[in-house]
Every structure is written in structure tokens, then in C-alpha cells.
């Protein structure tokens, strides 16, 4: 390498180091972290930058995949770079007990605007999400529309795609075995019930293609890799908007709620609370609904008739048909069942 080139590289790295150092000293912008995808792309305009415009607070956003290891390390090391974060219900409860999230400041965030079950010690409800059974009705005329039928390999041959993990999959197995939705968690809490779920899964194990990320079910059905899949309803609705013909089988719905939380030790904790109050209000949520079909956890927005009409996949209209994924059950039994599921699946 030439001497001059070396020098210029050395200069560049010095300048970069100086810039990075300077940045670290300056006060940090508010950092919002979500699961990415279409929701975040649209929430960026309607919610994050909407808040930024309304308050003159600079807001940046980043993406994570829902795995909490990074957030735990951050809090442990005292170097918190996330402020407001979107989390799933069990992670929220667990992180709250572990001191990874700040307790919600209900004097800033108005607690009574959320749907029932939309708030907890450390979180304020953001959006509802759910999974349901679907298939391509251009390839299959009358597919299975209940979980017992999904287990009927004779009438409905072909591969099925289920989530790789006990959550949702074990509930589905029990419902396929005839357990009433209201009794699913009672049965699943017993060793005999867990065995029953695994035995039921064993019946179709060779026909299962597992999915791990939420984009997969729609891809797998779209490419013909599998005939039927249980996947996120939001993505099924989106696929239908793009011309696909996947029936929405609301009787097979399992749903839960994602929440906003503030990471413990965030230097912007106060700002974060204010932002959560703003982005859970019905006005910005209705603005978001103009570009993206959401199922907000804000009661007023959820009841909005125009929104219900606009978004056929709006979960709050169908929750009576579905099974609410029991957060407390999964916090209490998740680790044990995850290990058991992994042992069963990788055998």
C-alpha cells in the first residue's frame, strides 16, 4: 500500500473517531424501537414523526426482532440506547419483573383510554395482533375451516405450516383435539394436557413445515410449499389486498396485544412517557389507519365505524370469535414448555 493512502486512511479513521465521540457527548434523540415491517414504515410518518412535529422533539426509530437479549444486556451494562420499545405481552410482564422496563407513569399516560386488558404495570397497549388458519382458495376450493379439520390428513392432504414454538401451536393442537377454547389453558397447565398436545402434534408432525418469522406463512402458501398455514392475520389481509385469495377464518383466531414500554435507565424516560401518551391517542392512530390497516388498543379508535369498515382484518371486531393468548400462562410456563417443545421438535 502507498504511504499516502495509508495516511489518508489514518486521517479518515481519526476524523470518524472524533465525530463518533462528539456524537456520544451530545444529548441523544428519542429512539423508538419496533418490529419493523409495514406497520413501522407507516407508523414512522403518522406516529413517530407526527409526535416529533407536534413537540419539536427529534425522533429516530430502529428495528429489533422481539428477542430481548439485547435489551437485557443494555440495561445490565447501563448503556441504554433504546427509549420507547414495542414488546409482546409475555416479554413485557417478564421484563417488568426483571426491571428491564420502567413502570408506566399513569399520570402522564391516560389509563382509561385503552381497551380492557390493554394496560399493565410497565406497558401501554399499542396494537392487537392475531394468527388464524388460511389457505389459497384459488388452489383449494373448500379447505379446512376449523382446527380439528386441519388434522384431517385424508380430506385435506398436503403440508401445513405452524409456528415453531409452543405458544399458539400447543393451544391449536388442544383445540384440534376437541378442547373448548375456554378450557385450553386449564388443560395445558397439566402435564397430562401437555402430553395430549404433543401427542396430537405427533399425528401430523411429518406434514408440518415450521415457520419462525412472520413473513414465512404467507410466502409458504403463496409459493405452494404448503397447502395450509396458521399465520398473522395482518399479513393475510395485506396479501389479499395484493390480489391473493386467502379466506379469513375468524373462528380459528388466536390473538394478543403488543405494548409500548420505556426501557429502564433510559435518559429520555420522561420524554418517552409523553410520546407513548401521544401515539396511543385516537387521532394519530386514525391518521395511521389511513395508510395502514391497524387494530389499535385504544378503545375509541377501535370502535370507530369508519375504521372497522376500512380494515376487514380489524381484530377488535372479531375477538369474540377468537382465543386470547393467555399472557400470565406463558410467563409462568413459557420457559418450561419452550424447552419441552424444543426437545420434542428436534427429536
Amino acid at each position, binding site marked *: 500500500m502507498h504511504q499516502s493512502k495509508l495516511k489518508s486512511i489514518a486521517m479518515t479513521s481519526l476524523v470518524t473517531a472524533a465525530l463518533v465521540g462528539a456524537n456520544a457527548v451530545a444529548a441523544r434523540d428519542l429512539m423508538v424501537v419496533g418490529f419493523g415491517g409495514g406497520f413501522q414504515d407507516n407508523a414512522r410518518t403518522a406516529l413517530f414523526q407526527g409526535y416529533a412535529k407536534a413537540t419539536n422533539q427529534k425522533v429516530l426509530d430502529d428495528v429489533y426482532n422481539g*428477542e*430481548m*437479549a439485547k435489551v*437485557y444486556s443494555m440495561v445490565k451494562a447501563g448503556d441504554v440506547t433504546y427509549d420507547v420499545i414495542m414488546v409482546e405481552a409475555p416479554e413485557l410482564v*417478564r*421484563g*417488568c*419483573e*426483571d*426491571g428491564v422496563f420502567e*413502570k408506566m407513569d399513569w399520570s402522564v399516560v391516560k389509563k382509561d383510554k385503552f381497551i380492557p386488558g390493554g394496560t399493565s404495570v410497565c406497558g401501554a397497549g399499542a396494537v392487537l395482533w392475531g394468527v388464524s388458519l388460511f389457505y389459497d382458495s384459488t388452489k383449494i376450493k373448500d379447505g379446512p375451516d376449523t382446527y380439528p379439520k386441519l388434522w384431517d390428513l385424508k380430506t385435506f392432504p398436503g403440508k401445513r405450516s405452524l409456528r*415453531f414454538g409452543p405458544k399458539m401451536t400447543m393451544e391449536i393442537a388442544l383445540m384440534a383435539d376437541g378442547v373448548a377454547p375456554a378450557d385450553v389453558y386449564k388443560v395445558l397447565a397439566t402435564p397430562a394436557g401437555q*402430553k395430549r398436545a*404433543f401427542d396430537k402434534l405427533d399425528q401430523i408432525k411429518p406434514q408440518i*413445515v*415450521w415457520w419462525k418469522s412472520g413473513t414465512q406463512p404467507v410466502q409458504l402458501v403463496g*409459493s*405452494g*410449499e404448503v397447502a395450509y398455514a396458521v399465520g398473522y392475520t395482518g399479513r393475510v389481509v395485506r396479501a389479499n389486498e395484493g390480489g391473493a385469495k386467502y379466506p379469513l377464518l375468524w373462528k380459528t383466531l388466536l390473538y394478543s396485544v403488543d405494548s409500548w414500554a420505556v426501557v*429502564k435507565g433510559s435518559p429520555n424516560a420522561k420524554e418517552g412517557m409523553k410520546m407513548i401518551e401521544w401515539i396511543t391517542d385516537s387521532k394519530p392512530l386514525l391518521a395511521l389507519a389511513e395508510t395502514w390497516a391497524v387494530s389499535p388498543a385504544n378503545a375509541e379508535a377501535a370502535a370507530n365505524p369508519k375504521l372497522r369498515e376500512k380494515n376487514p382484518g380489524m381484530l377488535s371486531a372479531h375477538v369474540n370469535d377468537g382465543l386470547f393468548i393467555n399472557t400470565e400462562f406463558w*410467563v*409462568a*410456563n*413459557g*420457559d*418450561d414448555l*419452550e*424447552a*419441552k417443545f*424444543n*426437545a*420434542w*421438535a*428436534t*427429536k
Partner: protein
Amino acid sequence: MMTRNNLFAGALVAPLFLLVVASFIVPLLITLYTAVNNPEVRATLPHTTAAVRAWDGVGLPPDDAFAAIARELAEAQEAQAIGQLSRRLNFEQTGLRALLLKTARAKDRLGPPWRDTMIELDPRWGDPELWQLIRRNTSTLTPLFMLRSLDFTITTDGSIAQAPKEDTVFRSLFVRTFEISFWVTVLCVLLGYPVAYTISTLSQRWANIAMALVLVPFWTSILVRTTAWFILLQREGPVNALLQAMHITDAPITMIFTRFAVYVAMVHVLLPFVILPLYSVMKGIDPVYMRAAASLGAPVWKRFLRVYLPMTMPGVTAGALMVFMLAVGFYITPALVGGPDDQMVSHFIAFYTNNTINWGMAAALATLLLLATGILVVMARLIVPGFRAGNLKL
């Protein structure tokens, strides 16, 4: 005695030494420590720890232990510090998390006599085995993570036993990991040897081109290469289309999410690691030896087996060793193209790190993987001819 030269040499080596200590030895020691560390009970329940340690272990502990745990659980929940403890004890015995949280929430209903009010709240507090479990976990170190990683468990009375059948996974997982790594290594050597030989006999110009063909994939991200195999092998992918177009099969063959796909992708990713050392060794072999063997009347196979192969063994062993050690730790490739029963130990290390945040289990599995690999490599050194550290030419 230190001379100036020694000092100078020491100063030159110091940066490397520090790098090795900081980036290798320290993380390794932290991992080893995490695999046996047991801080939760002592950190969250200091007074309870003192009380149960003073207890003789017969029957139920005195009332002050009940009082201490009731108070400390409530405090821990208020301070958002109960999670690690409840999860740790729940890992010992499923259901304990619920008991601890219930007790923490019921603080207003508890009071002297603590023992009676707590047993009234939940009869499990009257079980001496629960108290022995808590006492056992006031120790600084725990063998539980290591035992669980080998499909053992600690029973309620504190003795070691086989894990229940539905929980056993790790022994077969280790066997599978080494089995896959072994066959990947064998395939890499069988495929890489003729390639390296051919390249070493080419003229400089063609050798450069051939080398580039080996190196370009090598420089490509492993994720990209694995994803490429995913696309090639899927049900409606090019390979199936080709097979059907050539009428070799009528319906698409399931290749993705199988062991076959794992072997194909892993061998492809790891092949350069055996070709490169083999090539460098083969380049250094003087053709005069082979000619001498021929002039003494040795047939081709004998020339290869008795002269050429032994001289290339250092390259074979160096390449095989690298491929094997890399294969043992593979994660991305089996995760993307394999099914659930093709996952290796790394899958579970990532699972415990990211999903259940059980870093004790992740560290224990990592430690065992390291130990097992180390033992296998040492055994290979003793058994395989030409496998000596001094022969490792790269």
C-alpha cells in the same frame, strides 16, 4: 536474567498477548463461570439466605426464615427485581415462579405467626423439600445447568437422577452435532482433495483462475451462500424444475428443511477451508519424489498411497481440523435450510440466550461443546497418522 533484547521482544508480543487475553481468555472464563454461577437467591433474598443457612435442615425452618422470605419477596417485586429469582427457581422446579409471585402480592395478608399465615396462603410453604431447595440454592455455585445439559436433573431430595424422558434432548443433540460435523468433514476432504490436486498441477495462469473460483465464494457472506441454497433447493426452485424437466421425477422432491440440504450447504460453505491448506502443501511437494517412486517400479496406486498421500497428510489434517471445528459451531446454515431435527448445539445456545434469557444454560452448553470438541481433537491427534501440531502448515 532480563536482557534489553528480551524486554524488546516482550514489548513486541504484548499487544498480541493483551488481545488474546481480552478477546479470548476473559470471555472464555466468563462463560465457564456463568455456567455454574448461582447468584439469584443470595442477591435477592439476603436475610432469607442467612436464616436458612442457620437452620439445621430438619423439618421446617424457624419462623424468622418465613418472615424474611415474605418481606424480601414483596420488596423484590416492588423494586422490579423478582424476575431473575423467580425464573431461576422455576427452572429448578416448574411452578415455583407462580408461588413466589403469589406470596409477594399477598404481603398485606401475611404476618406473625409467619409460618402459619404462609402455609394458609399456599400449602407448598409447609413442604420441607421446598425449603431444602431454597437452602441448596444459597450456594455460590450450582451444578444444575451442566447436569441439565447432559440430560440429568436434581430431584426434590437433592440427588442427581436421569431427566424424565420427555425432557431428554441434549445427549442426542451432541451426538447429532458431532455426527453432522464428522460427515461434513469427510465430504469436504473427499471433494477438496482432487480439486486441490488438480489446481496444484495447472499452469500458473489457470491455477490463478481456478483459485479465484474457490476464493470468490469464500469471500461471499455465509448468509448469502446459505440463502442461495435455500432458493435452489426449495419445492418450486430451480433444482426441482430441472429434475422435472429432465423427467427424472414427476413431482417436486422435498429437499429443503432436510438433512440433505444441511450437508449440501455446509460442505459448500466449508470446502475452501480444506482446499486452501491442501493446495499449499501440494504446491510444496517436489515432483521428483513421484518420479523416483515410478522409476523404482511402483504402480500408480502405490505411488499415491505410499508417497504422495503421506506427504499431503499435514494439509489433510489441517484442513479437516478446521472444517470440523467450524462445523461443530454452525448455526445459520442448519437454521435456514434444515428442519427441527437437523439443528445442532448452537441452535440451543442461541435459543437459551435470546428466547428464554437463560444464560446459565447457554453457557453450560457452550462449555460442554468446547470440552467435547477439545477431547475429540486430542483423540484425533493420537489416532490419525501425521497429525502433529508441528505439521500444521497453513
